[in-house]
């Protein structure tokens, strides 16, 4: 193919001017090189693309397809059009689960990002000491514990005779003790605490890495100008780690919206649906109610919701880079 192209250009070169011919030849050579590079790149990308197509795109397309059928997962299905989507709007339980997921963003995202900023800014001050290493390790530890184990551990801690209530009793706050995960008013915040505990380590580490990149002379200059620790934080630290904050917020918001394991282990959506989240509702619909179509419709709506929440965050961070 390359051969024919070269021959073709040679024929035209005879009738063109010397300078423009050499420029065109250079352009063509460049294009040929790009094309070659393109083939190599394609060869490298194909295996991953095939896996991605088989395990991500195909299920995605199938989910959209299933959402238009009434299907129990085994026997013949019936085309129902947009009926499954219409039923989502009518069902207060499913809307409630989306509301719960949005509320979880506060606990899974805002709390760990704020606490992460606070701890990272504190650790940064004594970054080279052994204490910093210990605190980093301790705070990051929840990140390496499997979510299921974290969930089980916290159900013990939050039980009515668990450590949290024992501590409250110990300091004379008996009136506050309760079955945190068994009370409809506290179950969702209690699940939120578990999520915040897990996410804190990652946020702290990311933000600490971001802070390490800040030029120390900036701080020196600020100090000469008479800035205190608070002023330093808002004038230098915070603006410098905006990009890292963006990453933290994106990751934790997705984990809040897609929460399944922590909720499944600690409350299974109960009591009285107070911690029901879309991930769990999709699972119940698909496997217990055996309404695969309805479950798929909720999954599609939910994916759209996640994109609607996450894309603006992405855009904000990208613009702040420029």
């Amino acid at each position: 193919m390359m051969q024919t192209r070269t021959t073709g250009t040679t024929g035209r070169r005879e009738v063109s001017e010397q300078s423009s011919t050499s420029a065109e030849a250079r352009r063509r050579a460049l294009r040929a090189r790009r094309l070659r590079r393109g083939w190599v790149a394609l060869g490298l990308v194909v295996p991953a693309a095939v896996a991605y197509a088989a395990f991500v795109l195909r299920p995605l397309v199938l989910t959209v397809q299933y959402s238009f059928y009434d299907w129990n997962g085994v026997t013949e299905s019936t085309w129902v059009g947009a009926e499954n989507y219409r039923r989502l709007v009518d069902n207060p339980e499913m809307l409630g689960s989306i509301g719960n997921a949005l509320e979880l963003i506060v606990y899974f995202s805002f709390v760990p990002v704020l606490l992460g900023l606070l701890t990272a800014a504190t650790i940064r001050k004594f970054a080279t000491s052994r204490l910093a290493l210990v605190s980093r390790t301790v705070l990051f530890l929840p990140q390496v514990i499997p979510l299921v184990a974290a969930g089980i551990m916290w159900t013990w801690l939050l039980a009515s005779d668990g450590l949290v209530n024992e501590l409250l009793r110990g300091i004379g706050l008996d009136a506050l003790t309760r079955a945190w995960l068994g009370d409809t008013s506290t179950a969702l915040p209690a699940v939120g605490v578990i999520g915040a505990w897990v996410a804190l380590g990652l946020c702290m580490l990311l933000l600490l890495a971001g802070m390490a990149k800040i030029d120390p002379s900036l701080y020196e200059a600020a100090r000469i100008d008479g800035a205190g620790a608070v002023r330093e934080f808002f004038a230098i630290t915070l603006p410098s780690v905006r990009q890292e904050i963006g990453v933290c917020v994106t990751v934790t918001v997705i984990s809040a919206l897609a929460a399944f394991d922590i909720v499944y282990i600690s409350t299974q959506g109960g009591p009285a649906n107070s911690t029901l989240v879309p991930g769990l509702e999709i699972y119940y619909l698909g496997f217990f109610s055996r309404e695969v179509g309805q479950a798929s419709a909720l999954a599609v709506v939910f994916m759209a919701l996640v994109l609607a929440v996450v894309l603006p965050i992405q855009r904000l961070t990208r613009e702040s880079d420029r």
Partner: protein
Amino acid sequence: MSRTTGRSRRAVATASVCLAGLITVTACSAPGASTTDDGTADAVATGDMTCGTEDVTLSAYVETGFPLAQELFDEFTVQHPNVTFDVREDQFAVITQNAPRVLADNPPDLMRLPQVSELAADGLLYDLDAAAEAFGWDEWPASQLEQMRVDEDGRRGSGPLYAMGLNFSMTGVFYNKELAAQIGMTGAPETLAELDDALAKAKAAGITPIAQFNGGATGGLAFPLQGLMASYGEPAEINSWTYQQPGATIDTPTTVEAAAHLQRWIEAGYFADDVNSLDYSMMMSRFIDGESLFIFNGDWESGNLDTQMPGNVGFFLVPPVEQGGEVGAMSAPLTYGISARAEHPECAAYFLDWVATDETARTISVEVGGSHPMGPADAFLPEVADDTVTAQTLAAGATIGEDDGAMEFIANATGAIYAKSWTPNLQKLVAGEIDAAGLLAAVQADYESEIGG
């Protein structure tokens, strides 16, 4: 640079569109159509309901944590050396959600089954009518097999037999004898008023009256509720609802009375304060540790409690409103079925008959399973020591038989009614967000929407 990025973006976009198009084209046929064609029996029935003499490996999918099935398998292999078992174990919740796919794609010869009506209606289960006739199961008390019969509309209670019990279990109230003695309770309460009295005394003495699981997706308050329903009303009415008989309702004056009684227990603080986050294993460990007077549970724990708290556990059925009144209890076979596409359905059926008729098997059913074996009323039963709770649960089973008070668990009315309706609504009852009448109205509405659609 920006030109290159723009072009590669275009390339990626084009590739994605092509790929998506390709996937869409390949995925356009309606889901599930292919499975139904061969949903019926693949195995060639020979009519010979035995395991033959050649080597046979039965594949079994059973519930983990309950040693009964494995003990029976081992004994069967001892008696029939040509038969071995290939056993896969999972938790009941996992089996429930996997059941249709496993029965269709990876058909086991024996499988612990959840609610059978939908599976039978979908043609996934082997019809055991021929086996019932061959083995004479038809001559057993009809109530034993009724729950596993499904008619062509997917209603239970009549029609072909689609599953069989390894034994049949029953629920009631276990009590800690030492704690009972502390509050002056010397024997089982004979009326609801006496039970109320014992609960009040326990509460006053600082003992948690009832540790009952009601957390997560498992509403354990359905146990006391159904017991109370049997005290106030007729088991037959409740069964017709569970079996999805036309026009049946769970929202009747007597069931509302029963739910109101449960609500009074909740309001009086008779359940542990964290009842809505308590799971089954936490309930058992609290009871075994002597932290509560009562639990509402089933005789499948009899053997376990005899081992863990020997001589210290009593059992009674939820008492009637008036002394000497009839009693009822949740009583259901430990259902096992055979996939419609199983490789050795006849050998599996033979095994199920052996479980009900062989003396050693019946002994294992009682001693390991803690429940009454299936079979004729006058069949062999092993000797059980009088001071054990197993002896009491077996005796209670006989009472239920006399009063014709066996009921299928209300949580098994439909596939999702337990996790999606009873559980959240019972948790709302505990939280004070709903009252007795509201609870039953809500469950009835969910039931109608589920079986209607």
